[in-house]
């Protein structure tokens, strides 16, 4: 599109030549922007350095890791990956990867289903003592999870579920993570109810309303919930540590620790190589889903 003030580039440059004030102003803006970017870049690098260091250290031989801060390996080696993948146990690292997925996937699915249903109830229905329940829900967010560890452990022991993944994901079927419910409620509150009323008139009952209308509109929020839950669960160390006791069921978080424990002289390059691999799923999932974080929602339905 044509610029209204400067119809074309030639006119713009002519104007620039003739107008020292304008030239000075533009130069000032450029200098300002350069300084801003340099500062941002510097702090960005400081924060990312540990991550870069981990990646590069994974390619270094063990003796080189702690001897230099340099990111570029002097002796490039893949030993860390090869030995790390084989682990010191009878299982490969792939096994631990799968183990992680065995409880993370059900955990994410259950969290999404239960949180959406509970949030829908809170946001759209009149329930007796709704305010009280809502405050209770918010209060559970503030409660440190470690407070519940012992009673929960005892409970699952009585149920005979120790050394299985059930204690890790079963509670999610009951919308126990208040944060996600709260997040969805807030999102739902921001959505106009017109569409739901129209659907009611079109013949939806409450469940059809949820499935056909609310869930599609909630999609960005649901994806955020799934993403958070996925990343937090993959990184969870305490849960598996308490409930999983046999090595064949270890997830990544425990497996990494395992290689530190079993050998005298720790093979740091192996650990760092596996740690690098371990964060790949989270990064991939995040990259796939990040569009939904910014997607404008339901704009079509309410546009004036």
């Amino acid at each position: 599109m044509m610029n209204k003030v400067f119809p074309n580039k030639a006119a713009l440059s002519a104007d620039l030549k003739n107008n020292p004030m304008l030239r000075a102003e533009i130069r000032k803006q450029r200098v300002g922007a350069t300084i801003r970017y340099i500062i941002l870049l510097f702090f960005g690098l400081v924060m990312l350095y540990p991550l870069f260091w981990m990646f590069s250290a994974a390619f270094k031989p063990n003796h080189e890791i702690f001897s230099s801060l340099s990111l570029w390996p002097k002796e490039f080696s893949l030993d860390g990956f090869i030995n790390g993948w084989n682990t010191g146990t009878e299982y490969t690292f792939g096994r631990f990867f799968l183990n992680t997925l065995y409880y993370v996937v059900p955990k994410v699915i259950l969290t999404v289903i239960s949180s959406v249903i509970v949030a829908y109830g809170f946001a759209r229905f009149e329930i007796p003592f709704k305010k009280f329940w809502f405050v209770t829900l918010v209060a559970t967010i503030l409660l440190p999870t470690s407070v519940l560890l012992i009673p929960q452990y005892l409970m699952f022991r009585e149920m005979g579920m120790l050394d299985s993944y059930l204690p890790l994901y079963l509670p999610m079927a009951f919308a126990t993570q208040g944060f996600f419910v709260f997040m969805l409620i807030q999102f739902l509150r921001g959505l106009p109810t017109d569409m739901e009323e129209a659907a009611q008139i079109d013949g939806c009952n409450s469940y059809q309303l949820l499935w056909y209308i609310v869930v599609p509109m909630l999609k960005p929020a649901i994806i955020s919930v799934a993403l958070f839950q996925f990343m937090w669960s993959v990184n969870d160390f305490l849960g598996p540590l308490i409930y999983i006791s046999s090595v064949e069921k270890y997830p990544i978080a425990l497996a990494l620790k395992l290689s530190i424990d079993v050998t005298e002289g720790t093979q740091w390059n192996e650990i760092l190589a596996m740690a690098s691999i371990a964060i790949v799923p989270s990064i991939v999932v995040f990259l796939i889903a990040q569009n939904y974080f910014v997607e404008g929602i339901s704009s079509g339905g309410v546009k004036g």
Partner: protein
Amino acid sequence: MSKVVFENLTKVYSNGFKAVHGINLEIEDGEFLVVIGPSGCAKSTTLRMLAGLESITGGSISIGGKVVNGLPPKDRGIAMVFQNYALYPHMSVRENLGFGLKLAKVSKADIEKQVNEAAELLELTPLLDRLPRQLSGGQAQRVAVGRAIVKRPQVFLFDEPLSNLDAKLRASMRVRISDLHKTLKKTNRSATSVYVTHDQTEAMTMGDRICVMKDGHIMQVDTPANLYKYPKNLFVAGFIGAPEMNMVETRLDRTGEGKCHLALSSQMLGLPDEKLQKVLTNFTEDVVFGIRPEFIKLADDNSPRDELIKGTIVRMENMGAEFYVHFTVEDRELCTRIPADVVEAKLLDAIGKEHLFHFEMNNGHIFSKATEINISL
């Protein structure tokens, strides 16, 4: 048959606020009824109660002779068009139109047929595969209307459907909806419509009858022409018509020969016999005199002497074909509409000057100040 009847319909909110005060209303089969009123008059609440989106506190609503008080919206045989269109953002126009039928488990072929039919009627065929966000406001509203038609409801409900459109589009949609109503009626389809708006023009041009509401009460239900000509009370008189009816608080004086005079400041207006008879049966001294701007004319030689008032012109607004001429009678300001050619002939440089005006008293109204009821009808 799709007659709608409200009997003593009441709505009280849980915080104790009484929104609708036991209203009674009959909407005939095939009628286009417009409900109008200032914001907060409970017109939308009433519509939503009819739709089943809002619970009823007291009274009853029946559609086609069947009481629907406890029925969910889908079982009432209604379709509704919302102010914000309320299209499902994730569905194409085609899916939006067919969604109600899909839920009703209509066969795919039938859905396709009915959707195409409605799309043709509303010229939506080229838009069928678009998403709501790819539509303009006018197109979106047409889809919303189409969604209502596809359902073949007994009653159509419109909740300020044109408020979000610009003036030009609003005018064309107004005609479209009116025409649609006529088309449906002609093809013997149920077309009873309840249309809520706060826009007078929509009410006057679209409605077979208009229901004027205020604070949860019905003020008057009548045809647009009657509402304009014979307002039952002060509120309706003031609400309908632009520019507004002139209203003057004044006194009604009974004179010796069984006549009545209205005092307008120090000048007097006589009442014609016809009005006099009616006024005398409900006589009260403190009244509000109302007269529409078009019934105040420039006086000429033929004007009756007891209908003349002298006023000073203070302002003239040029509306193109006519002028709104504002004049004061001592401390009161009144407005009249005078054709542009008359203004050019007689009122050039008239601002600040005195003029004689003819008040056509036959078309005036006298309201009791206490009850606000029109005692001259």
